[in-house]
Every structure is written in structure tokens, then in C-alpha cells.
């Protein structure tokens, strides 16, 4: 059995930032990642990271924008903490060597982003996440952080009511290892792959969240899933908001613009959720083609397209077979970010399972509430990676975490039996994982996506139940041990099925429209009943139960719920 003081699952920005604290404090800290750290999805973030660095800005304004953007179900203590710590967190990254873009005078460059009253988004060219991830990886090498590259989380183990470590599989050999740790942090990212059209990496399957729930931690806010209006219709690859900024039109099958019906002033430049809802309405009313509408830039002219939008043009040609100079680009609202995650206090600790921590997109310290602001999630990873890392150090050195929990060798056997069972299932009469993935993600997209209703969600639940039944007979072709990606994708699918069920249940439960949750049958925000988090827990038999958790407030009258107008 392997022992560490701190075990971090996930080597994206959140995990690597937390590891930095563990190592710097002199604790034996290890990171497990199913893909090489530099492959983590954090590398895909282009836009930037928010922080009130500019002396003319104020973190309180940033916090206000975030509370409002979250549609008043974000936790105010976490939001205040994140926004006040933001400048230092970004400066830390700069000091580590992150090549942020600069202003003329050498200060970190910042620009405007949606839903905020100040240009406070710092960036490193058009690869902010990539630059930050490489920087933290460089620090991990400098500090000699132990990283288990290409090790897959199979189970979070517990000792009584306390997390005791994890069972992981060395992907290269298929061998199982038991890791015992005094504190365990889940930083495994989001689960955007649950939706047929998404901007996410194929590895964003919510494994850590699903396993934390199985181990006894609560999840929260799972009903809140952010859809970006303009993903390419086939691949979901992101077409930047900047294209609409350049003057692109959204048009339907009939070739006419439609945004004047929904946002007569801001038109195509209304906020993300409004545009996504408008597009979906058009598609549902039969004004779409193959489940998408069109982003039209033809009127901008060839020269401007070639000069200002060369990358967008290339993406359209490469991934849709459409040259925007001659034809409109097929787009549809695309799953982009999952606000929900492992429910934690503002330091990133689970209240249900002692010794379990979470940070980044996998966590729900709830700084995003019902709707994330652009460039706040990279910020969340570096602020709460740091805070949670420090809190784990404190937990292990000064609190209950001083004592090492016990690991049970039975856990390895259990996981080993699970894999053996999966491999033993015959193809004959079995269920194919690609089929399950297809119908489940299509149903989630259609019935639990931009618009929801009781009937639609019932259909989504039918698909979930079918998937649960099919998972009992899912088979794999690859029966070998080494680098068995067939087994891994099947296990990831199992995690997605659990999260699908929890997401649909929470969406049914919340009988109002708020932020990313838009119920056709309950179109109004209902502050009297719904300024609260819905939590989801799994009992030992695998049964999901919903609960409630209060939204944490601070005494700030500015944070009182008001209508969200931009």
C-alpha cells in the first residue's frame, strides 16, 4: 500500500495549485491524473481570468457582479473570498513565470468580459489556461511533486465517516494500487460530456464527483449547466462571442434574423443564457436545420472575414465543411460548463465526509451559483486550489487529519472484481457503450438542456433509466490489462449515468427558472422558495436522494436579490 499525507485527484489548474501548497508546506503530497497533467482540460481555456488588479477597480465590484451573475444562489462568503483573493492569486501565477500579456507600462493586461462592470479579465494571449497550466506544471517539476501520470481513479475509500484515500488503476499496466492519505482532494473537473453537443474535452466525465458521491459526500447545484450559444453544430467546438461582437447575425432556416423578437435592444449581443434560449425556441418552432440555426457573417464581406476572423473561418471549414464567406455557419447552444459539484464549505472541505476536499470545476463552493460569469472559473481554480491546499495542510498538521485513517484491503478486491465482471460480459446480448452514450447524451441535450419542462425531464429520466439498465450488461471488447481504454471509457460512462440521474432529478425538483435552469412550465424566478441549493447524495445501495442546503450569505445589503437586467 502507498501512503501520502495529501492525495490530490486531478492535475488540472485546481489540482496542481493545491499540490503546490502541500509540497511547499513540506508535506508528502501526490497527484493522480488519468491523463498527463498538461493534457488536462484547463489547457483549453482561452479567454482569461478575472481579478480586480487595476487600482481603479475594486474586488467588491467584482464580487457584486458575481453574486448577481450567479442569480443570487451563489454562496456570498465564497464569492467574497474568491474576489478579494483574486489579485494575489493572479500575481502568484505571474511570479511563478506565467507569461501574462502586458500593457504598455508592463502591468498585466486586462480586457472586458460579459456581465461585468470593469475590464478585469487578465489573459495570456489567446491561451490563458494553457499558459497557466504549463506554469503550474513547471512548478511541480521544480518542487519535485509526485505525480501519478495516467492513473485512473476507481474508488474513494473511507474509514468510518472519513476519507482514507483511493483505489487507482495504473493505466499502463492495469494494476490496481491502494493509496492511503490523511486528506484527499478531488479536482477532476466538470462533466460537460453528459450532453451531446459540448465544448468539453472527452475526458470531462465527472469521475471524481461521482466517486465522491458514492463515498458519502454531497453534491449540489447539479441542475445548473451552462450552455454557450454558439458551438459548431456537429462538433460543439466553440465559436467565440467575439464573432457576434464583429456584427454577425443569427438567422433561421428562413434566412431571417430572429433576435429582435427576444432582445430588441441588444439583439445578438444579449447575454449568453438569453441568446441560447432564443436560438432553442427557434429550433423548437421549426426554424432550424438539423437541430441548429446559423451564424451569418456574409454581410461583413470577404475582406473583413479574412482579416478579423481567420481562425473562425478555418474552424468552420475544417469542422463543418462550410466557408463563412459564402454560407452561414451552422451553430447550436452547446454545453460549456457545469456549475454543480462536490458541496464544500468556503475552504473547500466536504461537510459530510471528513478529510475530503474539492476544488475547481469538480467542486461546489458555489461561487457560480446558477450561472458562471466568463473567466471566473479559471479564477476559481487558482484561488480555491490555493485555499483548499492550505486548508488541507492545516487539517493534516493541526486538526483531525493528524491521525492517519485506516485503509481496507477489501476495497482493492471489490474494484478488481468489478473490472473482472465487466470484462467477463459477452458481446452477445450485451449493450454497446457507444449506443448508451449516444441516446443518453442526446436525451440530456434535448430534454435537460437549455429549456426544461416536467414532460421533457420525464423523457430524460426514461433515458437515464434505460441507461442504468443497459449498464448492467455493457460489455468491452478489450479483455487485456495494459492500456485498456475500452474499460476506462465504460467506467467513465458509468459515472456519467449517475450524474445524469442526479442532474435530471435536481432539474425536476427546482420548479422555477433561475440562471441556467429555464423551466417552460415555471418561467419565473421564485425567490420566496428557491434561494437554496439542491443537494444530491447516494446511499450505500446506490439510491439518489435530494436535500437542501442554505445559501451562505454575508451581511451585505447590496447582495439582496434584484432583477437581473444587463
Amino acid at each position: 500500500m502507498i501512503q501520502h499525507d495529501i492525495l490530490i485527484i486531478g492535475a488540472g489548474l485546481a489540482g496542481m495549485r493545491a499540490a503546490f501548497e502541500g509540497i511547499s508546506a513540506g508535506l508528502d503530497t501526490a497527484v493522480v491524473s488519468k491523463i498527463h497533467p498538461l493534457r488536462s482540460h484547463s489547457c483549453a481555456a482561452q479567454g482569461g481570468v478575472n481579478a480586480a488588479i487595476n487600482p481603479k477597480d475594486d474586488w467588491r465590484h467584482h464580487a457584486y457582479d458575481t453574486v448577481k451573475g450567479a442569480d443570487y444562489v451563489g454562496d456570498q462568503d465564497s464569492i467574497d473570498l474568491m474576489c478579494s483573493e483574486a489579485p494575489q492569486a493572479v500575481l502568484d501565477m505571474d511570479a511563478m513565470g506565467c507569461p501574462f500579456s502586458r500593457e504598455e507600462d508592463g502591468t498585466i493586461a486586462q480586457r472586458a468580459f460579459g456581465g461585468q462592470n470593469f475590464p478585469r479579465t487578465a489573459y495570456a494571449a489567446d491561451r490563458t489556461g494553457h499558459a497557466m497550466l504549463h506554469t503550474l506544471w513547471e512548478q511541480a517539476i521544480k518542487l519535485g511533486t509526485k505525480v501519478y501520470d495516467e492513473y485512473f481513479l476507481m474508488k474513494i475509500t473511507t474509514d468510518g465517516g472519513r476519507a482514507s484515500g483511493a483505489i487507482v488503476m495504473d493505466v499502463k499496466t492495469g494494476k490496481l494500487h491502494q493509496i492511503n492519505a490523511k486528506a484527499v482532494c478531488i479536482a477532476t473537473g466538470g462533466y460537460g460530456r453528459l450532453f451531446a453537443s459540448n465544448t468539453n474535452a472527452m475526458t470531462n466525465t465527472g469521475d471524481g464527483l461521482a466517486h465522491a458521491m458514492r463515498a458519502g459526500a454531497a453534491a449540489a447545484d447539479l441542475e445548473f449547466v451552462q450552455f454557450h450559444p454558439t458551438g459548431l453544430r456537429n462538433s460543439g467546438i466553440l465559436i467565440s462571442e467575439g464573432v457576434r461582437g464583429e456584427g454577425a447575425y443569427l438567422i433561421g432556416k428562413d434566412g431571417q434574423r430572429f433576435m429582435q423578437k427576444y432582445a430588441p435592444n441588444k439583439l445578438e449581443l444579449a447575454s449568453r443564457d438569453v441568446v441560447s434560449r432564443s436560438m432553442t425556441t427557434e429550433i423548437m418552432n421549426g426554424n432550424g436545420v438539423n437541430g441548429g440555426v446559423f451564424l451569418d457573417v456574409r454581410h461583413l464581406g470577404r475582406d473583413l472575414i479574412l482579416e478579423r476572423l481567420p481562425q473562425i473561418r478555418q474552424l468552420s471549414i475544417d469542422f463543418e465543411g462550410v466557408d463563412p464567406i459564402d454560407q452561414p455557419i451552422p451553430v447550436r447552444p452547446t454545453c460549456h460548463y457545469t456549475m454543480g459539484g462536490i458541496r464544500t464549505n468556503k475552504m473547500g472541505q466536504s461537510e459530510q465526509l471528513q478529510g475530503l476536499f474539492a476544488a475547481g470545476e469538480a467542486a461546489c463552493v458555489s461561487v457560480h451559483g446558477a450561472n458562471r460569469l466568463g473567466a471566473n472559473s479559471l479564477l476559481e481554480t487558482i484561488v480555491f486550489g490555493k485555499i483548499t491546499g492550505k486548508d488541507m495542510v492545516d487539517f493534516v498538521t493541526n486538526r483531525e487529519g493528524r491521525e492517519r485513517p485506516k485503509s481496507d484491503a477489501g476495497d482493492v478486491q471489490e474494484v478488481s472484481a468489478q473490472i473482472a465482471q465487466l470484462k467477463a460480459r459477452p458481446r452477445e446480448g450485451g449493450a454497446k457503450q457507444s449506443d448508451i452514450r449516444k441516446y443518453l447524451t442526446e436525451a440530456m441535450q434535448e430534454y435537460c438542456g437549455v429549456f426544461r419542462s416536467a414532460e421533457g425531464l420525464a423523457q430524460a429520466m426514461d433515458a437515464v433509466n434505460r441507461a442504468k439498465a443497459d449498464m448492467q450488461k455493457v460489455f468491452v471488447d478489450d479483455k487485456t490489462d495494459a492500456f485498456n481504454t475500452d474499460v476506462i471509457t465504460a467506467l467513465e460512462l458509468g459515472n456519467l449515468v449517475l450524474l445524469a440521474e442526479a442532474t435530471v432529478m435536481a432539474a425536476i425538483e427546482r420548479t422555477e427558472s433561475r440562471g441556467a435552469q429555464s423551466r417552460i412550465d415555471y418561467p419565473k424566478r421564485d425567490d420566496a422558495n428557491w434561494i437554496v441549493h439542491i443537494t444530491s447524495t447516494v446511499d450505500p445501495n446506490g439510491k439518489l436522494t435530494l436535500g437542501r442546503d442554505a445559501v451562505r450569505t454575508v451581511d451585505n445589503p447590496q447582495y439582496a436579490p434584484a432583477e437581473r437586467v444587463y
Partner: protein
Amino acid sequence: MQEQTVTFRILRGTIVNDKLVQRTQDFEVPCDATTTVLHALEWIKGEIDGTLTFRRSCRASICGSCGMYINGRSRLACKTKVNDILAGNVAKNIAPAKDGVIEVGPQRNQPVLKDLVVDIEPFYAKVKTLDPFVQDGPEKDEHVTKDSFSQVNMVSNCIMCGACYSDCTAMVENPDFFGPAALAKAYRFVADPREGNKTERLKELSEKNGIWDCTRCNMCIDACPKGVAPMEAIVKLRSLAMEAGITDNRGAKHAMVFKDDIATWGVLNEPFMLLKTAGVVGALGQLGNALNLAKVGKIPNPFPFDHKVDKLDEVKAIYRELQENPIDVRTRSDDSGPGAG
């Protein structure tokens, strides 16, 4: 391209008793104009044969997982369109596939673990030996300006996909060569004003398996999917090392002999090398007439030392020009500005 069935010839591999056993297997895959090699592999894995093994994650050419050898070159599967390989694409420097077959195999210069998956450990081990992090030290300059990172930008585009390493010719001869990606990464630090030990780094890089082991075959530039141009970084490192007086090594001496030969005799055995280097550092324009003459073949004899060239004065003019107007070896890549969120 209409929907059509395309043959994928995949080099499969398994380790049997510690030995790699490889064979090719054909799959017929439905493809259209938007199908990428990664889509096709996913389709095969999902619909036909779940044992097919490869790495992938972002599917948007930013994570570096899906490097493989596709029709004669290392490429990213997620960035490579089937149609481009079949029909060829001049703009992307792709020749049409022969027999209309897509051939996919694992990257080269690295041990194969299974099918299209190689062991990336040696590749990363080399990056790690070069201390890939900004260090404190005497040469640290805290003052950064708007274009301080214009040097850093291009090389920090690297996604560590290994394509350059896979196609590197020097690596075939010397498996211990650090390789293009690691050296490009090293340049990222040498070019960062905040780095404290630039000269120390240049010294290390000038040693065995370092910058002077590159044969300048250009393969890494062609292979790189992110425009990093590792060979350019290597050339810049060489120039910076020599500028810093780090000349007590075989490579630098070699270069100096070359330089003296040309200055004296007007010949060297790789006449195009100078041009290439000059082209790479983007200084041709500055050199004006003198180099233009060279360009149209005034350094005619590829075999050295047999005679002086006709117009030695012109060659000497090139050197004079270079001495008076030294080339800024640090080419610039402008900040590309913020992208999508």
C-alpha cells in the same frame, strides 16, 4: 467530399513477452468532408473494435494527446482531416495519399506501448532535465514590457504533443539528443526577461546532446501543429550561446570554422545553410544587395576548399554588413490578443 467509405490501415501493436508485435489491420470507415482522423478512430473503437487503443482528450488541437504518424508524417489526429490526406492540401503542405488509403501508426523515436500509444516518459524526462521553470539568479530582470514576451509567445504555444520529436532525424542517430520540443522549451526560459540564469542555461545547452546535435533538417518545423518552429529556437539558442562567448565546444567551433572559411574562401559545404539561417532569423531584407547576390547563386560551389569563389568581395560584403548590422536573432511573435472564453 461526398459521404464515402475510406480504408484506414492501422498499425496495431501489442507487447507479448516484453516484445512488441505489430501488424496492420484495415477498417472501412464512413467519412464526409468534416471527418477527422480522430473521428474515424473513435468510430472504429465505438462501432467495430473496442480494442483499438489511442490517446485523445480535447479534440481541438490544444491538449497534445493525439499525436500519431499519419501518411508519412507525425500529426495530430484531431486536427487532420481525412479529406486533406486523401485529396492533398497544398496550403497545409499535404500530398495526396497513394491508393486512397489512410495509414495510421504510432509516433516514432519512442517505445510503443500498445497500438497508437507510445511511452511518453523519455520525451518528458528530457524536458525535465533542462529545469523547465523560471529561476532566480543574477540575470533576472523584473521589469517586463508589453513586448517582453514576444520571444516567449511562439515557443510557449507548444502543447508537448511529441510530433517534432517523432520526426526528428537527429534523434534517430542519437537517442539521447534532447530533441526539438525540449530545446524550444529551454529557449522559452532563455528568452524570458525574468529568468535569472540565462548564460548558465546556454552553457548547459551547448553541451553534448544539446543545441549543436541538431542537424537542422527542418522536420520539426514541418511536423509541429502549433507553429512553434523548434529548429528556429535552436538556431537562436546557438547564436545567443556564441554571443555569450560559449564557444569551447565542438558545435560552436565548427560554426566558427565555417564562418571563417566563407569569409576567407567564399565557400562552405552547405551554401544554403547560411541562407536558411538568415532566412530563419528574418534578416534578409536588411542585408540588401549583398545577400541578394548570394541568393541567386553567387556561392556556387558546394565542395569546399578547392578554390576561392569569383566574387569574394561580395561575400565579404555580406560579412561586413552583418558585422555592422547584427541580426536580432530573437525573432518576434506578436501577442495574438485574447481569444474566446
